[in-house]
């Protein structure tokens, strides 16, 4: 979706919504609820369709933009389940998705000065103050593998998530074990994914342009991402936002690790038997369709047994991390709790994920003694290679 889009642009697609609530469920025959907000509050209002109907009510002047609209818009966890399920909206000639309408509601809320209190407000204030949401990455490549001319460029994401630091450390150690030359893209500046999702679009375009300007000279290399949000944003949104964008080869770290096991550059050491369950992060799975690589990595680890949760792959249930509004109280935590409950039901020892936000979200609702049971894929591989 172009940043110049307005609510009027989603009206035609929104009006094809059948109000059937199908967007909230996984596929037949399981029909499991996948939309966190609907799972929490089963009502048409809290479906993808509800957001579309609100957009239309705003356009018809049935309701004014107010703080409630913003709180509601930011309460969606942005897990993309609705867009994966509903073919109705995406079959419209405008090529829009339900999530586009939700992001537009956020962007319009921001334009009118309505930003929810809490994490979203904190980010907004920082963005307004600095024009950025970027931090210098703490990822420092060892000299042994660092080579500015290398074909592989590790995209050093900023460390917004508390878990990112440890994930970065594990990633460095793994890259060192693999031993191939790597260069690093560690410029200050947010890739733009957070700003885009949260509707802070005024500051987004210059940021994305600047970022692309720095990436462009490296575009013939392969970018490797640790954070699926950054990767998804670059792969799927840069082409929509940047007129001069040209496709960049990219990999998620799980894909690089899977390749490393396949070509023998990474070897598993058996450090005992362990049962793990893998949580598909929304942007890695539904956003980028990367489901197999993390599982291939787990299969390559000696002594590791994968036990799937009931909702997995395309039908994964969100961790709730990005539900930043408070229209439905405790939504973020309750969503994480529900997922942890599902993990516990598998009888697995460890909950493995591949996104720092997911790891943070799960750990937030787990007891101190259990927090260690949540690991990023890179951390598990690092421990067992």
């Amino acid at each position, binding site marked *: 979706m172009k940043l110049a889009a307005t609510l009027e642009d989603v*009206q*035609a697609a*929104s*009006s*094809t*919504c*059948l*109000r*059937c*609530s*199908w967007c*909230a*469920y996984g596929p*037949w*025959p*399981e*029909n499991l609820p996948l939309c966190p907000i609907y799972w929490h509050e*089963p*009502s*048409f*209002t809290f479906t993808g369709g*509800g957001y*579309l*109907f*609100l957009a*239309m*009510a705003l356009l*018809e002047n*049935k*309701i004014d933009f*107010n*703080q*409630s*609209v913003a*709180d*509601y818009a930011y309460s969606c966890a942005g897990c993309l389940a609705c867009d994966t399920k*509903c*073919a*109705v909206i*995406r*079959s*419209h*000639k405008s*090529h829009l998705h339900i999530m586009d309408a939700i992001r537009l509601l956020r962007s319009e809320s921001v334009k009118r000065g309505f930003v929810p209190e809490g994490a979203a407000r904190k980010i907004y204030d920082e963005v307004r103050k600095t024009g950025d949401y970027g931090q210098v990455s703490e990822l420092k490549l060892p000299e042994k593998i660092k080579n500015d001319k290398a074909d592989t460029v590790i995209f050093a994401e900023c460390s917004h998530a508390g878990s990112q630091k440890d994930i970065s450390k594990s990633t460095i150690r793994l890259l060192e074990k693999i031993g191939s030359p790597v260069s690093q893209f560690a410029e200050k500046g947010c890739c733009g994914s957070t700003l885009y999702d949260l509707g802070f679009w005024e500051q987004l375009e210059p940021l994305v342009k600047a970022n692309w300007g720095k990436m462009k000279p490296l575009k013939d290399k392969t970018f490797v991402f640790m954070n699926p949000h950054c990767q998804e944003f670059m792969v799927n949104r840069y082409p929509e936002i940047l007129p001069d964008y040209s496709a960049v080869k990219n990999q998620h770290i799980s894909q690089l690790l899977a390749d490393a096991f396949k070509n023998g550059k990474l070897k598993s050491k058996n450090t005992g038997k362990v049962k793990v369950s893998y949580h598909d992060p929304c942007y890695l799975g539904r956003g980028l369709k990367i489901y197999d690589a993390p599982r291939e990595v787990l299969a390559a680890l000696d002594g590791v047994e994968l036990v799937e949760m009931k909702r997995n792959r395309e039908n994964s249930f969100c961790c709730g991390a990005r539900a930043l509004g*408070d*229209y439905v109280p405790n939504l973020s935590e309750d969503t994480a709790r529900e997922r942890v409950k599902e993990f516990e039901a598998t009888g697995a020892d460890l909950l493995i994920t591949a996104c720092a936000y997911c790891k943070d979200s799960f750990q937030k609702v787990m007891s101190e003694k259990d927090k260690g049971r949540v690991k990023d894929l890179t951390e598990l591989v690092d421990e067992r290679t």
Partner: protein
Amino acid sequence: MVIKTVTSEKEAACQELKKAIGAEKVRDDEITLVTHGRINHGFDPSIPYQKPSMVVFPESREDVIETLKIANKYKISVNPVGTAQMGIPTAEGDIILDQRRRDKIIEISTDSGYAILEPGVTHDQLTSALRGTGYKCEVGTMTGSATVLAGGLGRGSKSFSNRHLSSILDLEVVLPDGTIFNTGSMMYPGVGPHLRYAGYPDLAGLYTGAAGTLGVITKFAVRLHPVNEVSKVHIAGFSNFSDAVDYVKDLVNHNIPEHCIIWNWHMYQTWPLDAEGMKTVMPEILKMDILKPPEGTPYSMVTSFLSGYEEQVEFYEKMCAKIAQKYHGRAYPQEEVEKRWPQTMAGLKQQYEEYSYREGTHWSRGRWSGFVVFAEPKDIKEVEKLCAKEFSELGPRARPINNYAHPFDYGRTFLFRYAGFPETDDVETRQKIAKKTVEICTEALKRYRAIPIAGTGEMPGEKAYLSVLSRIKKALDPNNILNQAAGARMYKEEEE
């Protein structure tokens, strides 16, 4: 932060209801209310926007009773709904009673072939629960997240059978004064829904199509049908609708298919399209004249669902081919359909082999707008011709025109649906179609005895019927709190 909007009496009713059944089941926040301003299946700008005063999500029968009691006390209209409702008018300030959280499958009887359900059970839920039981339920052409009650109870068109007009067996109903009763044989403790009427009149019939104006259904039973050893879809093509009707009538008279649908060529090529097909194939078909299918494309396609023992189905297939020839058509092998219209075959397989629904992408492409009637086989042919002529006068924005027909009640009657595909935001064309629909219904009734599926209150003979209904309505709902908007259409005499 939640901003509340209801005031005065309605605010008082809302507070009382929250206290009675729990605040978490009653929503009166502005966003919930505006997103329920149009509750019908699909956004339709030509349907007036009516903001409710609250939306209630009962989790038990007792919650429904409490809601009715309080609505009765404050004289606020209650509109009971499920998901994907169709043709349910609402009024400003209604209480929307959304039963989606009441979604328990109470009983599946494979011995007697019925399921007893709470009103929030969806078709997807029921079809999933039936997997492996050797039984299936009726399946239509809508999304599976629609509640069985929404489509099945209001109308008899959801079908997997030529043999019945309605899938509904018995009901449990709550009246505004708190009375609870069961219709049919379910009235006897421990007895299942076997007979809708025996010693007493058929009260389930009274509630079928009443749109919640005579009581709130809190439990209901639907027919199930056995899954036989072999199931197959037979496909036959015809150059005109009349031949297709004769073919279907012949098949049904010989007890061959469980279920038939006659699709016109626009419909069978576009109904099962996926999202990509909707963007690429659909626009091309939209440009073509419905009356002139491309060379080699049958005007009507009949899909017949055959089931039984292997030998039986083989025999049925031979019979279908023979009868198709008799009516100047021919059988289309599945491989041929798969090759020529791959998405059509995929859709048919999903519907008939997995007995699950296709997603409503077809419906969403401009949204159906047209009419539905029931008529006898010989008359339905004429109705189709009349529709083709009348709809073509609506101009290119209303086209293409799609239709399909099902036989019911052992072929005694056919349901026939004719529709245009105006863009969703083309209110002018939609309104033209709505006007034309009434005109065609009146004409089709007069000339061809075609019964409109939605009464208008204007047809000859409706007055006396509605007068009786009004008297029943007054007795059951003296304060007129049950779906006033729908009631205003049905109980005209009471209004006067």
